[in-house]
């Protein structure tokens, strides 16, 4: 299935949310009676950069799992591009639709080289037969070299990914996200375990991606310095629902947010 046919098919419950890239409406997910998401609603506009914060267990990772097809919601709607129902699709279909994800714990393929990791992420036909017969074109080779430069791994293409430092793995995974050339990028704690310099460079890279209106980004982060550096609209999650939304200063001044973060 190509991206085009997927996009053009009418999907899902017949509802539409024009003018949104991601539309999450009253989504609930329970695990053994625990409500990880509790009627969560969230709208991301095309080209928007959004940061999501919240204490541990607020449902940030579960929310990403629902958007990327890893977890099926018990109820609620999740629409991509205003009309594609994501709750009926598998992880690989969603990835081919144009949604990319960077995991909290860097997950690169340790037994493959840096170059091969990027090659696997490359945007191209990904069905089994095309993958068997795949030949890297000069243009694609150039794109990989470009991304190697962007993520600072230009001198390590032949190194096994498992031999990289923690920060380098984070960058390689960001590189894999870039290779996929997705429209919606979900980044789960992209700077966890990074040095200050690496964190700063990551913030610059994200802001750079944000300049292209083709990209919409959702960044989950704990590091307030980093959230401030991004200067984007902030959504605060708590116990599986949205507690507050607004600029960082506004949410930090919000009494409910202060209470959640500092304890009752």
């Amino acid at each position: 299935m190509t991206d085009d046919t997927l996009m053009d098919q009418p999907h899902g419950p017949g509802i539409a949310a024009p003018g949104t890239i991601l539309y999450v409406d009253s989504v609930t997910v329970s695990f053994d009676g625990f409500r990880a998401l509790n009627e969560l609603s969230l709208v991301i506009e095309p080209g928007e950069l959004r940061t999501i914060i919240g204490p541990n267990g607020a449902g940030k990772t579960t929310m990403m799992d629902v958007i990327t097809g890893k977890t099926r919601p018990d109820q609620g709607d999740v629409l991509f591009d205003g009309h594609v129902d994501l709750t009926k699709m598998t992880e690989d279909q969603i990835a081919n639709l144009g949604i990319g994800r960077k995991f909290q714990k860097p997950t690169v393929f340790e037994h493959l080289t840096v170059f091969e990791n990027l090659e696997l992420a490359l945007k191209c036909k990904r069905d089994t037969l095309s993958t068997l017969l795949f030949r890297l074109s000069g243009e694609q080779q150039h794109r990989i070299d470009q991304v190697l430069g962007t993520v600072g791994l230009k001198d390590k293409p032949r190194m096994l990914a498992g031999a990289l430092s923690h920060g380098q793995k984070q960058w390689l995974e960001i590189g894999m996200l870039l290779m996929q050339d997705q429209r919606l990028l979900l980044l789960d704690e992209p700077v966890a375990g990074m040095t200050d310099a690496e964190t700063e460079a990551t913030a610059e890279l994200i802001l750079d991606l944000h300049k292209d209106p083709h990209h919409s980004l959702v960044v989950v982060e704990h590091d307030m310095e980093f959230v401030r550096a991004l200067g984007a609209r902030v959504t605060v999650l708590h116990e599986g629902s949205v507690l507050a939304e607004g600029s960082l200063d506004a949410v930090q001044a919000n009494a409910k947010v202060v209470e959640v973060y500092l304890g009752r």
Partner: protein
Amino acid sequence: MHSLSHLFLNPGDRRFWAGFTALGVLFLLLVPALNLLLPADSALHVPNYMVTLIGKYLCYAILAMAMNLVWGYCGVLSLGHGAFFALGGYAIGMYMMRSIGARGVYGNADLPDFMVFLNWKELPWYWLGFDHFWFAALMVMAIPGALAFVFGWLAFRSRINGVYLSIVTQAMTYALMLAFFRNEMGFGGNNGLTDFKDILGFDLSQDATKMGLYLLTTLVLGATFLLVRFVTASKLGRVMMAVRDAESRVRFLGYSVTGVKLFAFTLSAVLAGIAGALYVPQVGIINPSEFSPANSIEIAIWVAVGGRGTLLGPVLGAFAVNGAKTWLTGAAPELWLFALGALFILVTLALPKGLVGLWAGLRARVTEKSND
């Protein structure tokens, strides 16, 4: 062109071609030469029974390569590969039964002996077509392939992984064994298929036919080598390794893990079927014990001993373990199962990459010393 330069310039690839050529010279030239050209009393003469024994090991080596493709590279531990091997063997066995014709004990031109014995009057429909070699040759691949495709599709789609997959594949081969033991199935029951006379008109009792089967098996092993290399050196091969190491991550990159596993499993089953079809004419019998769950576990041990996820490892493992088995079951038969168990524990604990890993480790040490 990155991939092309990759194929020829990489030192690992030069090593591959060196190993491939060495194996070719050994099995294709040296063994036949020592058998045919040296007098029987020479110390270096390879006797006929030895050629057939090596031919049998070569079939096991093909089977081990098939197993390695799906387990070593894709991380799917199938413990039912003995079933695909046996099905390939039965398919060629049916052809050889049909070509016995009226030369059987009962002299019945229309029915195999065991059917006459069971008082059957008519050939069952599923035996139709097996009079023709081309049909049997097709079934050698189609039946294991189709079974693997359907079984794999159901299992992988439902995300049955790891030890659960190993258990259901064991159950599959066990169920087939019980079914093939039944006389009503029409595959000779307990005794299986045997008393073969010839294949494609060549008399199976002739030394020349045995040598021909041996050489054919060697060529098929070579072709399997190249095929497995082609698959594992492709981008799909890297996706397979990625599935082995971090399955869910591969899905988020947009690859269908079900599709990748199904490809590896089905191709592997087809190769196992071919190995079985080469094996049966050389040993002269196929019976339901080939489906026994223990057989399938042994295949995994060959691969583990030789080195999972390496091209040469399975061949080495198949020869080493079966060589030891032939020797020990002669010298001290009661010890063999203990030895096999001990070997598996030793390899798992001390040699995670098998014999190939041991060799690579030694080489690395020698290089390090010479650099000092």
